């Protein structure tokens, strides 16, 4: 003990101060911890991520690559646009299409899968180190809830008064459909959208860990090509597709299915 006291006496002033601070800390910290431990109980848990349904493009591409560009109605009668749904933890969801009815297109929805021998082409942008690859898809003909792979889309606001095409109810709009070059024919004249919905589509690809893979879909856009000698006054002229109209907008939206309890 004496030795210790002598040793402390020999220490310089700063070292003595350090020693005192060290001693105070040693005593104070355990005391405060002891007090807290008895004072409070705490329950700790996780907050789950909100479930989300994402819409994406084909392959592993994000939604950015969904594209309706370059449809040439003078060659062929249809074109498939591939997109996908990431249903997250929901096992059923609704898809709603809403589109303007400027061009006489018919929209159908199919469930598709990646298939080397398929006929639906999709240019993938993210696979193979940034190089674009062509992926092939085919219709899943035996998919549950479909008719030979076609998902039944129910029109929400159809106006069947006109012949041929199904159009959104647009009684407040001009009925005669013409091209932009005609007098008083505005670009957005036929832009009132037609809504159609498919409900309760089951999630097809569930991973073993419960997460879901993408469910792929293709929108089939089809048309009846018009003959070059047709003129506006021909009956049903506007049921035929010409390359002189270019603006239609299609919205794809998806949400989880609300099951009736």
């Amino acid at each position, binding site marked *: 003990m004496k030795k210790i006291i002598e040793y402390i006496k020999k220490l310089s002033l700063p070292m003595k101060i350090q020693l005192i601070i060290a001693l105070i800390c040693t005593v104070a910290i355990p*005391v*405060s*911890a002891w*007090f*807290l*431990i*008895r*004072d*409070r*109980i*705490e*329950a*700790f*848990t*996780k*907050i*789950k*991520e*909100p479930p989300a349904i994402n819409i994406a493009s084909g392959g592993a591409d994000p939604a950015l690559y969904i594209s309706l560009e370059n449809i040439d109605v003078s060659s062929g009668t249809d074109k498939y646009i591939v997109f996908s749904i990431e249903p997250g933890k929901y096992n059923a969801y609704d898809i709603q299409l809403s589109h303007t009815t400027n061009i006489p297109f018919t929209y159908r929805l199919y469930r598709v899968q990646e298939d080397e021998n398929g006929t639906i082409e999709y240019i993938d942008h993210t696979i193979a180190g940034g190089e674009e690859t062509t992926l092939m898809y085919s219709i899943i003909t035996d998919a549950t809830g479909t008719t030979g792979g076609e998902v039944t889309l129910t029109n929400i606001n159809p106006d069947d008064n006109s012949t041929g095409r199904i159009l959104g109810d647009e009684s407040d709009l001009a009925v005669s459909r013409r091209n932009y070059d005609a007098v008083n024919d505005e670009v957005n004249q036929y832009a009132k959208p037609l809504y159609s919905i498919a409900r309760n589509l089951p999630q097809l690809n569930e991973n073993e*860990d*419960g997460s879901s893979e993408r469910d792929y879909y293709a929108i089939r856009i089809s048309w009846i090509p018009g003959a070059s000698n047709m003129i506006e006054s021909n009956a049903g002229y506007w049921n035929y597709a010409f390359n002189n109209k270019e603006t239609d907008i299609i919205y794809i939206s998806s949400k989880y299915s609300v099951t009736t309890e």
Partner: protein
Amino acid sequence: MNGKIWEKLENLYKVYQEGDDDSKKRLASSSISLVKMGVLLIFVFIIFILGAIAWFSTNGEVSDNGMGILVQGAPYTIQTRSGSGIYSDIYESLNTGGMEWKISADYNFDNHTSAIEEGEEEPGIEPGDSGKLEFRVNPNDADSITVDCVFDIKVYLKTITPVGNGETETAINEINNSVIKEYVKSHIMLFSGQDSVTHKYTGLIGDDQSARRVFSNQTYTRNGATYTTIYWVWPKYLSNLTSNDNSEIIFAPTERSAVIQYIANNKDGFFKDCSDSVSKVTSDLTSLSTAYSNSIFNHYNMKYDNADLEIGNHVSYLLLSMKVEPVVDSE
């Protein structure tokens, strides 16, 4: 001692008046020592006063001020169940200084292993979940103790940062954003009772004057067997709280009006971007409970759901703490 000092002072004065140069030098040195002594005395006096004040104040009130508890010895022990939560490792790593609220299969915070056995990947809470927790307070020396139970919420965010080579680093940090904290505090509601038949909640644990959630004046006897049950619920829809429909979770009209008042007082926690006044929210929600209106309901329910979404998007973990404060007898 005082007499001596006075003599010394008189001496000094004489020297100052009559002394030669030599004695004036001595005067200088002795006045320095006098000043030193005076300073020391004042210092001792200050310490004495401080000590006395501290002694008075610690004895005068026994509070959560650590000193008071230490003087008396711990007056109580908080007792819980025996099981650890599945996230207890993460909890321990946070070093909050608290004690883990132990759980069981029936009493937990959706953090019991039974949830995993039932097939949940990562159990946790989400809107629509509810459950119960229990605890009791045991007085260590007295025969009984009356305490206030003060509840608080802390929220944490888990971030995963890539550090190269496909490796990632996980960090869990407390969220100090008061807006997010308010959302969580409001949406995780606490009740002290639930009807055993109808499962409707009673006894909302609301705020005291300092916006703390306090379950006050709970009395426990020594080594008693009674545990206190706390019911937590994260209502999925606003209508769960406001509607008078028999299927909802609050049914008694008095309970509902207390809940509505609580929602209105905490409108910035219950609703995202709610600019309506407290009285407007109160009257709107009260009108909903008797006559449903689509427009009023949607106005608030949208904000309620948005707040839920904010929680889900920004919070990874939640910590509900309960602090016990002995109630001092007013007698």
